């Protein structure tokens, strides 16, 4: 049995980091030299996908996928999101346009997962950032879980996975 969880978000939001923290296997990465260091100052960026696994013994495993965050790689997004139990959108609130990114990713990924299975995780955010995101989500007349979370912290990531689990349980129990 395989569950699939997708990490989405713009470049530099911590997708590869999150998969590295959660994965029980050495993550598979498709990194290339980053030519956009004026946008996000890091040496490399994901251009294909990131992949990791949470191993659950006989019960199966959870496959963790990270998308390349730049819009020029948006062709990868539906490929990766297909059949996902949920999507965790990571946003770095210190990036200027993170609210626009939330809107854009929410629009795109809502085609493949329902709002409850689309969890928003705000890194380096304040309560005001949280309010702003909740307001944006409310304006779109959907209810998306929005949390503060640090992609380097396993407890935070576990909490995000817990939200996806409850959502999946509700879907199962109601069928």
């Amino acid at each position, binding site marked *: 049995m395989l569950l699939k969880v997708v990490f989405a978000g713009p470049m530099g939001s911590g997708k590869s980091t999150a998969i590295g923290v959660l994965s029980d296997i050495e993550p598979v990465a498709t990194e290339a030299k980053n030519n956009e260091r004026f946008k996000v100052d890091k040496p490399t960026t994901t251009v294909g996908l990131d992949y990791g696994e949470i191993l659950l013994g006989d019960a199966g495993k*959870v496959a963790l996928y990270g998308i390349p965050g730049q819009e020029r790689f948006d062709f990868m997004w539906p490929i990766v999101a297909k059949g996902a139990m949920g999507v965790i959108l990571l946003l770095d609130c210190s990036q200027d346009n993170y609210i626009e990114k939330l809107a854009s990713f929410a629009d795109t990924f809502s085609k493949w997962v329902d709002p409850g299975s689309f969890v928003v995780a705000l890194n380096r955010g304040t309560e005001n950032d949280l309010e702003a995101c909740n307001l944006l989500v409310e304006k779109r007349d959907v*209810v998306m879980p929005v949390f503060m979370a640090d992609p380097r912290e396993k407890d935070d990531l576990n909490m995000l996975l817990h*939200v996806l*689990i409850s959502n999946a349980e509700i*879907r*199962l*129990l109601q069928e």
Partner: protein
Amino acid sequence: MQLFSDSGDVCVTKLNFSAIGLDEKADALLARQLKIVTPWLTAEWSMNAEPEASDFILTTSKSLLPSSFQGVSVLLLEKLSDDDHDMVAELPLRVFSLMDILNKAGERITNDLSAIPEVSAESIVTASEKTTEKISFSCAEWLSQRMLEKVACFYIAKDKGASFSFDPVKKVFRSNIESRDELIKLLLMHPVEHWDIRADDETSEAYEFSATGLLWLLALKESRYALHVWGSPNRVYRIKHWPQLAAWENVPALYKLSSLYGRKAATIDTGVKISGLEERHVCAFLHACNVVGLKVEVCDSETADRLQPSVQSLNILQALKKKLGV
């Protein structure tokens, strides 16, 4: 255990207790704690300087008990172990622990019970049973209204030293009570009409608590009020925003309720079935969402779920939960 009869009357049995092995400071604190909990005790307790003449003794060592003493005693320990099931309490003695101990000792003395039940930590959702909660008043709602007004300082228990204030800029409560749970218990124990409310903050409150987090926990405990207000079987509810469960209260059942009422409009009954909680606790969840401004909508009917391929088996979800330590 019920502290009050339905009419609100308390018992008037007079009992006394003494403490052995505590230092002068702890003794004085105990006397102050007794004053705080007196209105919520099922018997009229007083402190007695003579252990031999006491109905009940709190002691740090059994060897300190007078040889002639035949009554009920509780052992006070620095640290409880898993083997300690009966007749023990942890130091420092908290106000609520003292209340529990005295009520249970009183029950045992008056009813001649064979043992004092264990003094254990209570879950957040069940604690409302042990408070003065009123069916028609919500302390959490009242406080959230005050938060919209200017800075205020609240002296919860006059002359008892318990106070707190609200900082609208940082959106935090500051209190001289160190523990958030302790503060919440005090808030629930002392009716608002007995508080001393001032516009100026003259206190020196050292401890900070997130305002929404504290209101959330407070509201979760007001289950009787919540049941009264939210417990209509025909109404369906939906929340517009998710609560910050990790920061406020990390209880698995609340994740399920958040998922349910976030996904679709649903009745209280559906919430009960999905979460396994009692009706009043589901109501308390909705009440808490409402108090912290998560916007609870009352809808006309249960809405259909969005379509998404579901996970085929609960087993793998259970395995994942286990792995995550949920």
